[in-house]
């Protein structure tokens, strides 16, 4: 019930005195302010825990230490090349994952027979941990970009595949019938009806995959020793340079935030028609 009340109050009719443009500006800034407050609170709590000794700074660095280390990164060419290598592996891996999983997901979502045929294989393969495949990937590809990409794809394609498959199943049957009754051919039906209809699911899958891909890139660099931020983390770990290690980890996680912000923005554009987007304008349309 609180939720209802909150919604109501949030969007209560504005008083006549309230300047509308100022109100809208405030409204636009509010989410950003919320975020800053939330992030600041977490950092403060972490720093306090470090000071109080709840977190041993020898095994987990404090925010202050991390910031101290972070400021040295911009001037460090090794950092930039590692960052570049990681981003490259991540981007290629993610694009490939989507490029493979999306069509396959569409096909398996559209055909029950195909799905049943592949069910065992898919459920089997997606439980094979990429971590365990590192030695094999190393043997075949060496500590290279290819190795990273392969491991990333092996892990990150599954969410996209599954979400796409379910998404296809969830396309409004009336949309499908409409397409069918107008004898839209298969390709056009997929492009104009199935993919957009499944897109809420697909978008979720891509967002899951994007972060997984990042983690897998870093993980394969760390374990397999390919150049990148993960390798740097490994080196810092072996050297017990906790500040540097955590600074690097923060960079990785910040990349994750960035990646998701970009995706959320893209999603907002591509899916501007979807309830998740239009409910916002509905609610704010006062």
């Amino acid at each position, binding site marked *: 019930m609180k939720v209802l009340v909150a919604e109501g109050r949030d969007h*209560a009719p504005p008083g006549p005195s309230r300047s509308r443009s100022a109100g809208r500006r405030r409204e636009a800034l509010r989410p950003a302010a919320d975020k800053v407050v939330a992030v600041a609170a977490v950092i403060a709590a972490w720093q306090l825990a470090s000071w109080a000794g709840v977190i041993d700074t020898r095994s987990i660095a404090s925010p202050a230490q991390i910031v101290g280390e972070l400021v040295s990164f911009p001037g460090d060419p090794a950092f930039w090349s590692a960052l570049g290598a990681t981003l490259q592996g991540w981007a290629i891996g993610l694009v490939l994952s989507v490029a493979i999983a999306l069509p396959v997901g569409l096909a398996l979502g559209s055909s029950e027979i195909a799905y049943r045929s592949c069910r065992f294989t898919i459920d089997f393969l997606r439980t094979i941990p990429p971590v365990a495949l590192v030695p094999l990937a190393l043997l075949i590809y060496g500590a290279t970009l290819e190795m990273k990409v392969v491991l990333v794809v092996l892990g990150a394609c599954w969410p996209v595949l599954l979400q796409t498959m379910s998404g296809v199943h969830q396309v409004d049957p009336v949309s499908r019938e409409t397409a069918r009754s107008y004898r839209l051919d298969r390709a056009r039906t997929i492009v104009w009806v199935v993919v957009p209809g499944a897109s809420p699911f697909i978008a979720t899958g891509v967002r899951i995959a994007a972060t997984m891909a990042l983690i897998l890139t870093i993980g394969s660099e760390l374990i397999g020793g390919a150049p990148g931020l993960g390798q740097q983390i490994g080196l810092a770990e072996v050297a017990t340079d906790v500040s540097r290690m955590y600074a690097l980890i923060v960079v990785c996680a910040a990349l994750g935030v960035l990646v998701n912000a970009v995706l959320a923005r893209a999603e907002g554009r591509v899916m501007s028609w979807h309830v998740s987007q239009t409910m916002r304008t509905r609610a704010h*349309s006062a």
Partner: protein
Amino acid sequence: MAESATTPAVAARRPAEPPDTAGERHSALLSVQRLTKSYPVPEGRRTVVEDLDLDVRPGEIVTIVGPSGAGKTTLLRCIAGLLPASSGQVVIGGRPVTGPPEQLAVVFQDYSRSLMPWLSVRHNVELPLRGKNVPRDERRRRVTDALADVGLGHTAEQHPWQLSGGMQQRVAIARALAYRPQAMLMDEPFASVDAQTRADLEDLVLDLRQRLDITILLVTHDIDEAVYLGDTVVVLGGRPTRVRERLTVPLGRDRDQATTKALPEFVRLRTHILTGIREGAS
């Protein structure tokens, strides 16, 4: 509301009088005051409804007619507290509406989407009652009655997507009936049912008001229906939409499909509205 009763010939083309008559205000259960609503569009905002005033007394049936896209649904959604007004306000029972008010049931125009596909017909109708903490037995009874009232006693265990369009629409009506609200907002509630069922449902609405004194605001495109059901018919029109006309229907409360519709008063009103609409359109 007597003072606003004008003969159609006089009232035509005249905007509704300013709703500042103190006496009327006080007796209104529901009052829409200078309501303006605009939607965001790429080019800025489009004002759909502007400075609209409307009063509904307790137990009154107000029917709303107006061209497609005039803003009838928008108006209803504002009254239901689902959509915030851009300016102006809606007052129900003396309090301004900021969220969905209590004791109000809405029958949505988009009936097929307003039923939850995961619930059986029975549970769809029952859901609001569970929220109201109506005891179990009472709930069962009310659901059964409401479904029987709309002629769907036999479909209780089916799911909405197993029903025809008209049946779905009737389930949505049954849900509102079972809720036993003080006021009901109905957005083209009989659009998809056949003539006979429609007549039956119209009479059900009249009966409901008679027995339970429910206040009803009903949007329809059927002018006959608007006149047959309404104590007042509100004609919307213009761009942005305002109240074009507000007609009191002098047919009393006892109405009957065959006889009422043959009354000269009925025919006159109906023709008047139709002519008005046609002129407005051309």
